[in-house]
């Protein structure tokens, strides 16, 4: 992991560990666990235990102080959260897509920012190198990314080109054994600490190409974006390229066009579809427990019909979302999950998670706005998740186009 002086300051700051027990329990109203294998359940228990041990005690403080717990990159690697569904020989875990989803869900139960750290490394950096990279690129980068020795980031979005990446202006021009890279990327998770960046840029024919830009290449910088009120425990920055000379050996050999970056996004969106249900479950779990313990008018507030309505609707939506992603996972395991199906699940999970966070906040009353409970942190995080990896509206248009065959984007 790259550490510049600015980030060193963050890492050296004091993060307080909370002693309070994390009482989270999963919720499985429709016995969906019966559809999972022992491996899936063991993976879930392991990541849940890791989150309780490593994330919960520090996450509120990290979020409050906008400090990225960069020491957790190593822990995420050790637990196997980077590229769990990639082959073992390339630094992955050799697991299936459902296991990958479950891991993302447990991480996001802790915090969307922690899940983002892992999503980016696995789905947006390791996956494209595995899928589109040369054998030399795979061997050179994947084991180091899988072990957490290298941290990666993914550059597609630009300051003026978000939902419309095909209009990107970042470009490469051939120069002997190198390409000269110019342009800028924005909203890049992990960029200020990344050792490498998978960057998408247009070549001289206007075709989108993928390349691996390494820390230390002249003209390459990664300024941090400050002032975020969401995903505060995740580090975000820009990628700036000023005549960066990238060796041709760092360019993905065959992939051309938007298909390359979009296939990575499908992988990451799939993880988000599972992940945000974790945030929803944490909000529901906290609200259920709080409503049983909090008494008003001489009885637990869980006994009041309006509280029960909220809780019943929450678990209904969680259960529907759990079934949707489970089915999506079985399709993904067969290689049959379409990008449009992934869009539907990503959009649905984000929407229900955000609504559940807001309802849970109400159940917690005034306590819901404090960092004594995880609700507001999840709620603020989910505002980002609703927008990144394809905005809420764009995913709706993808579904719309899929069912009508008509393009509503243009």
């Amino acid at each position, binding site marked *: 992991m790259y550490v510049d002086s600015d980030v060193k300051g963050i890492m050296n700051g004091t993060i307080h560990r909370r002693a309070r027990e994390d009482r989270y329990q999963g919720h499985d109203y429709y016995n969906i666990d019966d559809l999972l294998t022992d491996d899936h359940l063991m993976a879930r228990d*392991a990541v849940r235990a*890791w989150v309780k041990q490593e994330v919960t005690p520090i996450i509120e403080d990290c979020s409050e102080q906008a400090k990225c717990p960069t020491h957790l990159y190593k822990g995420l690697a050790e637990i196997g959260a980077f590229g769990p569904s990639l082959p073992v020989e390339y630094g992955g875990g050799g697991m299936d897509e459902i296991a990958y989803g479950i891991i993302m869900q447990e991480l996001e139960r802790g915090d969307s920012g922690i899940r983002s750290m892992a999503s980016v490394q696995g789905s947006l950096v390791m996956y494209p190198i595995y899928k589109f990279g040369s054998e030399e690129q795979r061997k050179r980068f994947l084991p180091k990314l899988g072990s957490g020795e290298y941290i990666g980031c993914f550059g597609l979005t630009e300051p003026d080109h978000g939902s419309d990446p095909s209009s990107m202006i970042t470009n490469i021009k051939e120069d002997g054994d190198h390409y000269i890279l110019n342009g800028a990327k924005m909203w890049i998770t992990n960029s200020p600490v990344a050792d490498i960046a998978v960057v998408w840029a247009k070549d001289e024919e206007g075709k989108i190409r993928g390349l691996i830009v390494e820390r230390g290449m002249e003209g390459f910088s990664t300024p941090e974006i400050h002032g975020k009120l969401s995903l505060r425990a995740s580090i975000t920055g820009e990628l700036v390229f000023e005549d960066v000379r990238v060796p041709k050996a760092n360019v993905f050999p065959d992939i051309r066009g938007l298909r390359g970056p979009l296939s990575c996004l499908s992988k990451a969106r799939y993880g988000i579809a599972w992940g945000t249900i974790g945030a929803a479950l944490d909000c529901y779990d906290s609200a259920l427990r709080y409503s049983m313990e909090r008494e008003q008018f001489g009885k637990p507030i869980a006994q009041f019909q309006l509280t029960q309505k909220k809780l019943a609707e929450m678990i209904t939506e969680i259960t529907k979302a759990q079934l949707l992603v489970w089915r999506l996972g079985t399709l993904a395991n067969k290689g049959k999950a379409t990008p449009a199906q992934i869009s539907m699940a990503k959009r649905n999970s984000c929407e229900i998670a955000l609504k559940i966070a807001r309802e849970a906040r109400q159940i917690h009353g005034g306590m819901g706005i404090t960092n004594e409970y995880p609700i507001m942190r999840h709620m603020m995080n989910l505002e980002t998740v609703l927008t990144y990896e394809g905005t809420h509206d764009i995913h709706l248009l993808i579904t719309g186009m899929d069912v009508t065959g008509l393009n509503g984007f243009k």
Partner: protein
Amino acid sequence: MKLLVCVSKTPETTAKIAFTNNDSEFDTSGVQFIMNPYDEWYALVRALELKEQLGGSVTILNVGPASNDAVIRKGLAIGADDAIRVNAEPKSSLYVAKQIAAVAKEGGYDVIFLGKESIDYNGSEVSAMTAELLDMPFISYATKMDIDGSTATIEREIEGGTEVLEVDTPFVLSAAKGMAEQRIPNMRGIMMAKRKPLKVVEAVEANDLTTVATYTMPPSKTEVKMIDPENMDELVRLLHEESKVI
């Protein structure tokens, strides 16, 4: 160094406890099971640490039906080399101890680890019975253990202090808190566990000397009664007549 770690399957700590069949059996419906934490966090992890330090192997042993395999696989995912399951219902402490003793005799292990107790029946019996059946030294409630050659130095907490013991292998040890720190299996370990050997053996003949007659739930907590500090007579009356403690 050949190490045997005996693990049991226990209900998850937040499980709702109920009984069935005229209160003579524990009702397992809807209950999630885990590896007994004393077996996992302390016995198994210390055995793995010793193996990493001294070489050798760690074998997991469980007495139970095929549905216990998930718990055994977790032990393999954490790092044990192989496992043996005695295919029988663990009916009583003595029955389980006799099964462990039979396997241990055959395997010739240097140390036989168990947790200090299981968190369901809390009997702390199996480890002592196993040692007796094997005619081996037994150290209970150990909080620290190191091995140099064939001699182990073991610490155990006693009233007001610590007792340090030396014992030669082979011996039986029950592990308590302090022996090691919990290890969380990683994804690679989970995948590797599927390929590690899990041998299933049939149970040896063993008599049960006890049977469970009935289980009862503890009385539910009664409401707290607030007594006015000025009314000490009422407090005394309640302690005398209702609580019957004075």
